[in-house]
């Protein structure tokens, strides 16, 4: 990989954070991402139920939590979409919820692929 590319962040996964996490997590690096993926899939399921039930509070809390853990692992796009949903839930903007949930699910699928690539590399 050319040297200059190291500083270009992927819109899905922030490579700087990935590098940093490798230093922090050492041999638990893979474990962290696997934890993130399982944890996030659970959260996405709960999030879908909450949106379906039009439960603003639960929607906001789960979106906030997913935003937080995504931020920590460098999942920039998922984190950004979660923040949009968190705000929409706080403001009671019900019309936007379904669209934002779909966006989160889509970016998560891309993210999952990138993570698997990263772990296999």
């Amino acid at each position, binding site marked *: 990989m050319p040297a200059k590319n190291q500083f270009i962040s992927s819109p899905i996964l922030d490579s700087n954070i990935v590098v940093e*996490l490798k230093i*922090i997590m050492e041999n638990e690096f893979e474990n962290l991402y696997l934890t993130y993926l399982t944890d996030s899939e659970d959260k996405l399921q709960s999030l879908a139920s909450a949106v379906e039930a039009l439960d603003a509070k639960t929607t906001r*809390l789960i979106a*906030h939590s997913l935003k*937080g*853990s995504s931020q*920590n692992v460098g999942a920039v796009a998922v984190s950004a979409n979660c923040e949009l949903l968190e705000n929409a839930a706080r403001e009671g903007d019900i019309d936007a919820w379904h669209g934002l949930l779909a966006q989160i699910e889509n970016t998560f699928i891309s993210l999952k692929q990138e993570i698997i690539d990263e772990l296999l590399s």
Partner: protein
Amino acid sequence: MKILIADDNRVERFILLKVLEQCGHEVIQAETGREAIQLFFEHRPALVFLDVLMPDVDGYEVAAAISGNDRSHWVPIIFLTSLTEASDLAKCIECGGDDFVSKPINRIIIKAKVDAFSRISKLYETIEVQKNEIEFHNEHLIKEQEAAKRIFNNIAHRGCLDSDNINYHLSPMSIFNGDLLLAAETPMGGTRLMLADFTGHGLPAAMGALPTSEIFYSMTRKGFAISDVMTEMNTRLHEVLPRGIFCCVVIADIDAVYEQISLWNAGLPQAFIINQNDGEIKSIQSSHLPLGVQSPEKFSVEPQVLAFGEKHKLLAVTDGIIESTNRNDEMFGEERILDYIKKDLELSRLSQPGPSQRNMCDGLVDKVVAFTNNAAQGDDLSLLEVSFPHHQKMDDNLLEGRQMTALTGTLDSSLSLSLRGKSLARFDPIPLLLQTILECRELTPHRSRIFTILSELYNNAVEHGVLGLDSKIKNGPQGFSNYYRLRHELLESLSDGQVTLKFDHRPLADGGEIIFDVVDSGTGFDVKKIDFSQGDEYSGRGLPLLLSLCDSLEQLEGGRHVRATYRWFARAGSSSN
């Protein structure tokens, strides 16, 4: 360092765990707020990381629950937060947190925070250890002071301070302020008082009180005059006190027979002699360096003598009262004391005629407390107020008398002592003669009377015989000062002149008799010429007193030789073989 992290987010917790473990810390993890509280008390961590938003009990509540339960052991709490509102961040601190870090977790910031708080924690621990040490030492010190106070109180006891004519104010721990108040009855039935203030505080200031009190009580009992007592104290304190510690003192002898007071002030604020009838206030300023400063060779004492009777009061203070300071940094000062005395005099004259029963001490202490607006200030004040002593102790020491078992010492003996020239000014022979006579223990109950006879005879021989002074000089407003100034000047310039004192103590079947012979080198005088009816207020006092105490009083060699015979009887039950 043992660190508790409480976060419901597994990913976040995982990263934080690794960051902390990498720095070598032991980490305890809690997934919920409730678990965090439980684990906190179970593991007693040294530092806590708290997520703000947790599903059951949030971080604010956890912080409130775990902070401040044990003030002696400080555990810093750091909040993990993605909140950015200033008020949310402030709330972290309000509810007991010590700091906050923003998410996402940053390895370098976390490490820096932990290092910083570990440093502060160590400081706290050091302070805590030192605080405990200080508390321990302080407790120890207070116990020692209590014990020392008991010993001091036994030696530097209050003497006759509880007499009706004495009011005083003295803090119970005054000895450690360096203040000392002593009072004793003189052998002639008068009162001797001493108010002293050692420089400094604490034990060093208190130490000087021991020799001071011992000298005061033992020399007063033996009949030594103020100048001898002060000279002895100065010599002793000069020897034992370190540089910079000395003793300011006011000492006063109230003579109940002649109704006069001898006063000496060395370093204390002015003392006051108050005439309650005409409102005249005489101030006795310090006329000498404090005790312990001057070497014995340079030391000399000249007490002032003033009239002191029913209508008079003495007020003496230490500098605590003068230096009491109010909020505006003004000192109470001597002017305010004088104002208080004047007002008190007016008040007592309005309320009742005659000598006042008012307690100036308490009134003055109240004034100072009101002035400084600080009740604790009263603890630093030492004041003494004395009015005329009504009792005249002449047949005392019955208790001591009862302890005797056999005839001892100088029962059958005679001693003659002649003083010439300078010795008359420099040496007081009364204590020496008194002690020798009292070596016969049966005479212990007669101490006061023998002292009175000896000192009356000797003083008459010196003042009227050798110096030729006329007692009438004592009359009039400046009489006392004139008389004693003249006495002092004449004695100082004396080159010849002589007084011979002799006692001859003989046993008799039922006790004994002491014959005193006092011969002076003067021109003599005729006792019969003294006219008691002519208002000779002071001059006539000595002879009637002598006549009342002695079995016989003879005048020989034209008045230059007086022979007094004192007769005493053995007490029933005591052995007399």
